[in-house]
């Protein structure tokens, strides 16, 4: 079934692809700029024909407003858990307590669960090993890393992030 596309989605994709071309090329002569337009149009047409552009294709349209508070928070979390993991590794006794914990994730769109699972893995000390529906299985290097992850702030924040996505 063909997905219904809005003009905004198509335009956003075209702008993103052309911006990528400009950044990676670095040559701003008429010919190369025109070639960029040609390939952008080509890619967009192929994308539409292959039906690749769905509600997840250009999610930034929905996330742009909220993602700017999430990213800095995530970076701080990553730094904190990196320091914790570094302390464990450099400790002569190597105080690890590997655990696998199962818990319910609050996000329920595909994109929300993807962001949540990847955010968990991105913070050292926790790796998402399996996701089925709302079931998240997380392997943790030490007990504290996983303590209260179900009621944790990341769970809540990603849930808030995905609000307003289509097919929520």
């Amino acid at each position, binding site marked *: 079934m063909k997905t219904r596309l809005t003009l905004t989605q198509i335009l956003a994709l075209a702008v993103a692809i052309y911006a990528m071309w400009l*950044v*990676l090329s*670095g040559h701003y002569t008429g010919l190369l700029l025109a070639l960029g337009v040609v390939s952008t149009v080509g890619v967009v047409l192929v994308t539409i024909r292959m039906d690749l552009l769905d509600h997840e294709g250009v999610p930034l349209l929905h996330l742009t407003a909220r993602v700017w508070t999430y990213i800095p928070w995530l*970076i701080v979390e*990553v*730094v904190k858990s*990196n320091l914790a*993991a*570094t302390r464990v*590794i*450099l400790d002569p006794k*190597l105080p*690890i*307590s*590997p*655990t*696998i*914990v*199962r818990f319910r994730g609050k996000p329920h769109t595909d994109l929300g669960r993807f962001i949540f*699972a*990847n*955010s*968990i*893995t*991105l*913070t*050292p*000390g*926790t*790796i*998402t*090993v*399996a*996701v*089925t*529906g*709302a*079931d998240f*299985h997380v*392997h943790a*290097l030490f*007990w504290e890393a996983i303590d209260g992850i179900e009621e944790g702030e990341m769970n809540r924040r990603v849930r808030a992030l995905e609000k307003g996505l289509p097919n929520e």
Partner: protein
Amino acid sequence: MVIDILSWVFLASGAFFMLVAGVGVLRMPDVFTRLHAAGIKDTLGAALTIIGLMLQAGLTLVAVKLALIWIFLWFTSPVASHSVARAALLGGVRPILQQTDGDGLESATESARLGDDQEGSSR
């Protein structure tokens, strides 16, 4: 000059975390715990190194490209870590676990086997 010093602080601390990750990979007992150690290099090690290099590049196109590398790295490395962990679990590697949370390992293996095709079936 100030930027140079700042840049070297970032590069040196990036190198430090890379080293820690290497030490961690050698010290950890099994594949799952090693992945945690390798994660340090993917996240903080790479980020600090890239920030250091961006400071060297100044406000140029090179800095933008470095930022793109950072973004792509933070998108792809958790996916890779997850794939390795899931593949190991499906391949029958028994993780060393200290505190078992009920049937954590069994249900994780089952969930890894099912993947997300069975959406909703386990809710």
